[in-house]
């Protein structure tokens, strides 16, 4: 096998791998198909074509696989589209392991095409786009090498480098053409299937449980995965939002874990109104990502209304109802991989709740203390407060004390019998749940109503919205303040409230998220409306563009100037390339030009088509006085041009000088003769 053939096969196999990966990123393919394909790909890349000798017999394996998939589909364990995609992948795997010939190559490429189409049906991830482009490029190169290899006579090398250049240009144009087609081809529907969701890589991270158990290491704070995207209106505009996003609250603590009093409050509502709001509500369009892993709605503190919820699954999206539970928790009724909804929240300052309007169970729970509460907790709280009775001031005083006297740590090993006492008096270090629990219970010991709230703290700007990471999961305290309702007081040191993960990893994920956001807005959610906008922007500038905020993109004339500059640079580059690459005149030819220039004063010109030796021969025939001077130059020119004896350094100048002297002498002589002839008396005919 030649080097070109090996390269072609490797490219073919890697292209097939990319096509399979474009499906695999959806996370919906059965694990065993991933394993089988992976083994086949590795074997193929190692050059082990295990099915080369028994292609037909091994094709029976595919029948078995098809039967397994069919059983899965009929039992409802597997989606039909997913099963079809998995089968396409396994067909490709079989072909990878078969003997490489023209037919097999074609089948591998076409099965790759099917896999990429399947990937489009399963996933809308940015990674899919990358795999699509990788598959297109690798597959095209492999196919082109195959075409050339088939035409190259046996034994001759495949001109790989020569193939790559025009092909690279072609693929670039194909990608550009695909983009143009994508933008301009009229969308004949409104993408009614809605966005599809894929579980992504790795298990879901956060979610909400019905209880919060105190203790254990806070590993989640290191996790940089993005769990929530939100667009706010009005847009606060800052890079870091540093806001509290509440999921639910807890009011009963038994010494080890927090729970809620009460159960389901409202069973099935399309729109949940948790508390009345005014005109200054903050609107949020929220998307909970698969990494979130829960069904509890998250909203900026303090949520007023929640609704318009959509659950996104692998096959599309559907509207879902909401359920209200104790602790102000709102849940999606139907499970999905990801969710989107809208929320309205009150501006910061308080929830506006009044004690009397709270359910009676909650009223009782807000001052409840665990039976076995360490008496030192109460004593310490009293000592710190030193008679302070105003709830908010007391809470802030205690929070400041906790931040001052206790350290933040995520490394808490082992279960403790009394985690609160351990945090406050023994270890004096803990994470957000310890700080929030301590503050809540210390307030309660002093007769101040408080509860634990969990959710997220932070908000990092990405494009036009904000994202939350799994590491932003947080717990804090709600203090009931008369006239204001529940007010947030956070006892955790400010530096440790947001995610504690690696900065580099967070930046990388942030960059990916920004790209993913662009991809989603520009490709996945591209619609007829966007096409109309594009057309309108081409015809005239968008209405009100002068009055609204200036775009971050350069103005159209800058694009035009850049395009023009690019074209000029390209033209200049082409010109330079052509000049550099043009055939340079032979040194001897330049010598002839010099000889010709020197002969000009003597009025000796070469006739049309007359060579230097012809001129020399003519002058010799005519007995021209310059013939002897021209002869050595002509002879030397012929030797240099055709005889393989190039002119030595300075030789041309020497010959030219000699010729020039002869020409000057000749010209002078001619002039003298002319003057003499003019001076001679002429006989006049009479």
């Amino acid at each position, binding site marked *: 096998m030649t080097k070109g053939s090996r390269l072609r096969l490797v490219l073919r196999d890697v292209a097939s791998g990319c096509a399979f990966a474009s499906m695999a990123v959806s996370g919906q393919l059965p694990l065993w198909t991933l394993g089988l394909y992976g083994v086949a790909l590795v074997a193929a890349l190692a050059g082990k074509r295990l099915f080369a000798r028994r292609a037909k017999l091994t094709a029976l394996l595919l029948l078995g696989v098809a039967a397994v998939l069919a059983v899965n589909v009929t039992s409802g364990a597997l989606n039909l589209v997913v099963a079809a995609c998995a089968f396409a992948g396994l067909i490709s795997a079989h072909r990878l392991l078969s003997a490489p010939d023209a037919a097999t190559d074609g089948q591998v490429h076409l099965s790759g095409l099917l896999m990429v189409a399947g990937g489009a049906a399963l996933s809308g991830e940015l990674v899919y786009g990358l795999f*699509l482009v990788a598959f297109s490029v690798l597959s095209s190169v492999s*196919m082109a090498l195959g*075409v050339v290899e088939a035409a190259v006579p046996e034994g001759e090398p495949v001109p790989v480098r020569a193939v790559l250049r025009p092909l690279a240009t072609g693929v670039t144009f194909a*990608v550009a053409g*695909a983009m143009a087609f994508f933008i301009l081809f009229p969308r*004949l529907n409104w993408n009614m299937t809605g966005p599809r969701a894929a579980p992504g890589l790795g298990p879901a991270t956060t979610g909400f449980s019905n209880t919060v158990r105190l203790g254990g290491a806070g590993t989640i704070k290191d996790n940089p995965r993005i769990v929530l995207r939100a667009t706010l209106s009005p847009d606060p505009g800052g890079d870091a939002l540093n806001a509290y996003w509440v999921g639910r609250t807890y009011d009963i603590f038994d010494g080890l874990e927090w729970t809620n009093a009460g159960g389901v409050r409202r069973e099935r509502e399309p729109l949940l109104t948790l508390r009345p709001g005014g005109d200054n509500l903050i609107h949020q369009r929220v998307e909970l990502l698969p990494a979130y892993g829960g069904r509890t709605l998250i909203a900026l503190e303090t949520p007023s209304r929640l609704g318009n919820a959509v659950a996104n699954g692998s096959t599309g999206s559907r509207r879902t109802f909401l359920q209200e539970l104790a602790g102000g928790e709102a849940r999606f009724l139907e499970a999905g991989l990801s969710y989107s909804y809208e929320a309205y929240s009150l501006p910061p300052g308080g929830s506006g709740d009044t004690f009397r309007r709270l359910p009676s169970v909650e009223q009782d729970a807000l001052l409840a203390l665990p039976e076995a509460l360490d008496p030192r907790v109460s004593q310490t709280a009293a000592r710190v407060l030193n008679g302070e009775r105003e709830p908010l001031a007391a809470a802030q005083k205690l929070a400041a004390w906790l931040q001052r006297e206790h350290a933040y740590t995520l490394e808490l090993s082992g279960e403790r019998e009394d985690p609160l006492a351990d945090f406050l008096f023994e270890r004096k270090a803990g994470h957000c749940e310890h700080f929030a629990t301590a503050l809540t219970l210390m307030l309660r010991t002093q007769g101040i109503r408080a509860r634990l709230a969990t959710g997220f703290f932070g908000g990092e700007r990405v494009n036009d919205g904000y994202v939350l990471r799994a590491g932003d999961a947080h717990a804090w305290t709600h203090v009931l303040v008369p006239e204001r309702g529940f007010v947030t007081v956070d006892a955790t040191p400010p530096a440790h409230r947001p995610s504690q993960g690696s900065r580099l990893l967070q930046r990388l994920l942030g960059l990916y998220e920004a790209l993913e956001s662009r991809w989603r807005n520009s490709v996945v959610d591209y619609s007829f409306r966007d096409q109309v906008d594009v057309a309108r922007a081409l015809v005239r500038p968008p209405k009100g563009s002068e009055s609204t905020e200036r775009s971050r993109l350069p103005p159209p004339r800058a694009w035009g100037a850049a395009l023009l500059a690019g074209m000029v640079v390209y033209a200049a580059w082409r010109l330079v390339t052509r000049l550099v690459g043009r055939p340079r005149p032979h040194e001897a030819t330049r010598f002839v030009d010099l000889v010709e220039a020197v002969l000009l004063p003597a009025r000796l010109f070469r006739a049309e088509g007359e060579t230097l030796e012809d001129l020399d021969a003519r002058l010799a025939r005519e007995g021209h006085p310059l013939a002897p001077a021209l002869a050595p130059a002509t002879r030397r020119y012929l030797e240099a041009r055709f005889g393989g004896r190039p002119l030595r350094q300075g030789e041309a100048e020497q010959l030219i000088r000699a010729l020039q002297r002869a020409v000057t002498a000749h010209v002078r002589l001619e002039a003298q003769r002319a003057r003499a002839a003019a001076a001679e008396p002429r006989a006049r005919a009479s």
Partner: protein
Amino acid sequence: MNLRLKQRRARLRAWLRPPRTLKVTRIGRTYLVVTFGVGLGALNTGNNLLYLLLGLLLSMVVVSGVLSERCIRDISVRRVGTDAAFAGEPFAFRWAVSRKQGHAFALTFSEADSPLLGGGGVGYLPANVEHVVRANLTAPRRGPLRMTGVRVTTTWPLGLFAKTRVLPLEGLLLVYPKRTYACQEPGDAERGPVGDSGNPRRNDGSGDVTGLRELAEGEDARRIHWLKSASTGKLLRVEREREERRTWVLTVEAGLAGDALERRCEEVAALAHRLLDEGHEVGLNTTDRRLRSGAGSAQEKRILRALAWLGFEGAREEEEEAA
């Protein structure tokens, strides 16, 4: 009149023929079916990724067309030809191919509008380099074969479509009779051991001089007796004795046509080959032509040429007129 009509027809055919023809390959058909399916899927579901994929697939089709067009443009071909073409068996044929600018890939060459089967290919043709493409062609039947052009086909870049262009190039290939085994005996030799058996006075030997005669067309000039030729004013050749050679004159009977003529031509060609191979002299008698006896490979070629033209005398006259 007939010739003019033929020329007009050929011109009309050339005018009507599209400059390029496009044929979808097997993998190309499947590719188009998948593209169609992706298009239907995109329209049906509104999935933007399918639209993107559809755009990519269609763009690749367009790019494939552009690249293949660039590939077969600016190509010039000349026929180097063949040494000998026998009907029914492959013979080596060559074209010299070049292009002034740009590279070309995966080109296959064949003769257009001719019954010649087979073709040759070149994987990579750089600019300003003349590349000789070799091919094994097969002619199905004997006779003169008029070639009107060279067909250039490329499946570059992806092998989805085969784009073909015909480069007009007039030419004539004379196909000799099929090489078979001679079943019949050649009959009696004109001179030699039978009848004239044992007579050493046979021509074109290397023995003693037996006489002089006028030099016939196509005979070896080295046999000319320059002194006598100068004195008589015409070319005379020396005839020398030969010991073992015999002379046969093979005949293709008049009135034969179709398969009978083909069979006879093949038979005569095979006999001539056998006899000449054995060192004898062979001549040929046909309806309108007589080849003097001769020996060697040149004589065999003359006989084969004469046999190839049998039944195509009209075309031969045209050819001679054109020459």
